[in-house]
């Protein structure tokens, strides 16, 4: 530690060069931070304490297939199931068919199953009493400037109402907020399944999927099997998964996020190693005589090695920390800028740890060669400029 000022002075011996190198490193870690945040948010999707006790039951045949509502009491009767809610896909769009608004038609107890969705008791009461009422997530309300009491026209991409038109209209009666940003309903609209079922001729007592809460998380697998056994060999076989498994499955089908992130980062860091390595080589070559002076003054070979190594590690750490800090700053601004589209770009502890480990590792890697050269320096030759 007592040599920190020495390392620092050596690092900023040529200001322009160090700052330019530092900026490249910052860019690399900025990219790392952003991509890692994306990877983590995909990996963590569905991995919450509340999510662990929820099971999703859908048709085994395919996700567009519906299930009979008669399954509800049967699932509720499976031992270990606390309560059962259900929902249907509505597929809404607001004003323009491209403005997709995710909309579910849900059972009355749907909100009970999702305790992370915060709705004030008044709003909840208003929703329960008004069959034509909808609840909208906070993000949507902000995005479109809706107010409680507004009539909201929503276009379903699938279901016509009793007049055969796919333009439905609802009354906004309440707001859904998210506890700790855990609830995906923050960006959604919920309407009454009863209203949906009564209105559209295309749905006759059918349910898209069931969500059941289990009493004991450790028994989730057994309960999932029991639920699937209820309809085995019928014409509506089910597939029950924990929320986490179901979400992971969807993401895997969307894209191999891990692979994409890893290959981009591979390219970025390979470039970084080459670039910074070259700078370090140059820096050490320039200071050959200075290093010789240090050795003459009694710095041991190992100390010189450590000094040069410390310089490159410090450079990388400096860039890494600034880059990741920038990501955190962007993460705070981005949700408001993108109108809630991008929500989860905070840098977690694990990203910080990984980033700092990477920075130190790369620092050692690129410092190794110049440091060894500095260590093996022969004082006489170096001072003579040979």
């Amino acid at each position, binding site marked *: 530690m007592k040599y920190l000022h020495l390392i620092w002075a050596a690092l900023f011996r040529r200001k322009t060069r160090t700052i330019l190198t530092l900026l490249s490193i910052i*860019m690399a870690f*900025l*990219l790392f931070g952003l991509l890692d945040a994306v990877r983590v948010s995909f990996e963590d999707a569905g991995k919450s304490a509340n999510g662990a006790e929820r099971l999703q039951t859908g*048709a085994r045949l395919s996700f567009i*297939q519906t299930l009979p509502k008669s399954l509800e009491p049967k699932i509720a009767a499976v031992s270990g199931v606390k309560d059962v809610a259900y929902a249907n896909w509505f597929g809404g769009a607001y004003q323009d068919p491209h403005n997709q608004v995710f909309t579910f038609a849900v059972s009355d107890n749907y909100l009970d199953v999702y305790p992370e969705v915060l709705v004030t008791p008044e709003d909840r009461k208003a929703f329960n009493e008004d069959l034509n009422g909808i609840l909208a997530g906070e993000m949507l309300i902000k995005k479109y400037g809706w107010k409680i009491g507004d009539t909201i026209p929503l*276009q379903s991409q699938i279901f016509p109402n009793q007049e055969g038109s796919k333009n439905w209209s609802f009354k906004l009666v309440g707001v859904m907020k998210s506890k700790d940003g855990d609830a995906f309903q923050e960006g959604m609209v919920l309407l009454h399944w009863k209203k949906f079922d009564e209105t559209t001729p295309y749905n006759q007592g059918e349910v898209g999927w069931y969500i059941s809460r289990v009493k004991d998380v450790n028994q989730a697998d057994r309960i999932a099997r029991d639920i699937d056994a209820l309809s085995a060999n019928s014409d509506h076989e089910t597939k029950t998964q924990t929320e986490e498994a179901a979400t992971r499955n969807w993401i*895997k*089908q969307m894209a191999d996020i891990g692979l994409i992130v890893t290959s981009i980062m591979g390219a970025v860091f390979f470039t970084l190693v080459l670039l910074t390595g070259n700078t370090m*080589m140059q820096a050490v070559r320039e200071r050959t005589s200075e290093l010789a002076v240090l050795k003459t003054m009694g710095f041991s070979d190992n100390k010189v090695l450590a000094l040069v190594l410390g310089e490159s590690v410090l450079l990388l750490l400096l860039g890494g920390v600034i880059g990741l800090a920038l990501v955190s700053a962007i993460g705070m601004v981005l949700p408001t800028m993108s109108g809630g589209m991008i929500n989860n770009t905070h840098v977690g502890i694990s990203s910080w740890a990984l980033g700092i480990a990477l920075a130190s590792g790369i620092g050692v890697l690129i410092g190794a060669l110049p440091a060894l050269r500095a260590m093996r320096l022969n004082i006489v030759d170096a001072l003579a400029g040979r």
Partner: protein
Amino acid sequence: MNFLIGLLAFFAVIVGVMVFLNLSWPALLVVLVLLGLWMVLTRRGRQAASVTSIGVSTLTQRLGSSAVVVVGIAGVVAVLVAMLAMANGFRETLKRTGSDDTAIVMRGASASEVSSVLGHDATVVIAEAPGIAKDAQGRPIASPELVVAANLPMMGGNPEEDFGSVQLRGIGEMAWELRSNAKIVEGRKFTPGMRELVAGKGAQRQFQGLEVGHEIKLGNQMWKVVGIFESNDAMESELWGDAGVVGPTYRPNGGNSRTSVFVRLTGANAFDAFKAALVSDPRLQVDVDTTLNYFSKQSEGTSKAISAIGIVVGAIMAIGAVFGALNTMFAAVATRAREIATLRAIGFRGLPVVVAIMLETMLLALIGGLLGGFLAWLVFNGYTASTLAAGSTGQLTFEFDVSVALLWTGIKWALAIGFIGGLYPALRAARMPVTTALRES
């Protein structure tokens, strides 16, 4: 004065980047020819040429630092081109699926095939519309089809747990006539009325058990895979079966309904009449589109999103590479400071020096761009990926498509990076007081 030059340089950077990013290759050719003429015909041009040749001939002695520029830019271009190739491949696959002489008819305001329903009567009416081509027996080439989804275990996953979604299309015999590009490459076509399927090659790569002779379980029924087909478009990611058998399986109370009708028109110009006839028919409430238009629209959102990600990532990397290039070129200028000062002392002007250093950087950038583009082409051209596409209910398999246009985009980016990376060091070299520079060691 210094501030003014800084400001001018800054504007030059912005204008330069804009120009380079929007450059078309004939324009580049013209610029190169003009530059060449200038170098041959004018005094300053000849000076610039000789200074450049000194710089370029000493490049090999500065291999390490020159490599930094090349590799840095190659990395940017490789990542950018790879991401854009992904978007491009996705778009092209869907575009190939459609043509402007085939049309798709769906229920009005349906976002995609899956969310559409057409009753049996409607499908009959549609097949009688004017403008539809006839086959050898004089029947209209109209294929009512039923698109649904099926869950199948994914390749490389646990067969009990890792289910993926595949699009299952119920078709009639006219579908083969309509899609003449679809060829059975293994096994045979399914027999109408039987629980038999043919699988696309893309679907076969993505899911377990899609081998000729195997049986797969859809819901509680067993279906036999009897053939594999190849169509080189989005359809290849599907399973095809007899609509008359698929219907009752998926729609127990509406087995006769279909999701869409595909028709072959007598020609692209027959579309307007065909559409007008259907839209004005009081018995129908349908949307009519050419398949080219329909499938291109389906790819729009996803390919735009992939391109946007590619450009953002590429831009961040490019900024990093600019600093790398600046660093290298500043160092190059610094090591040659005396050399440059000597040239200026014996009468060389500033402009040739600026041009020479810019050209040197651009040359390195060009090599980097070519290398990056080549790498992206080598690794990713034809690389297979899959995603759940918007508007489809199944995994869509597509191949990365590294086209010439994309490689050109990559080279333009490389040149833009080289331009910024060279400009400031060049200005510094030209403006360094000769006396100071000569004293520098």
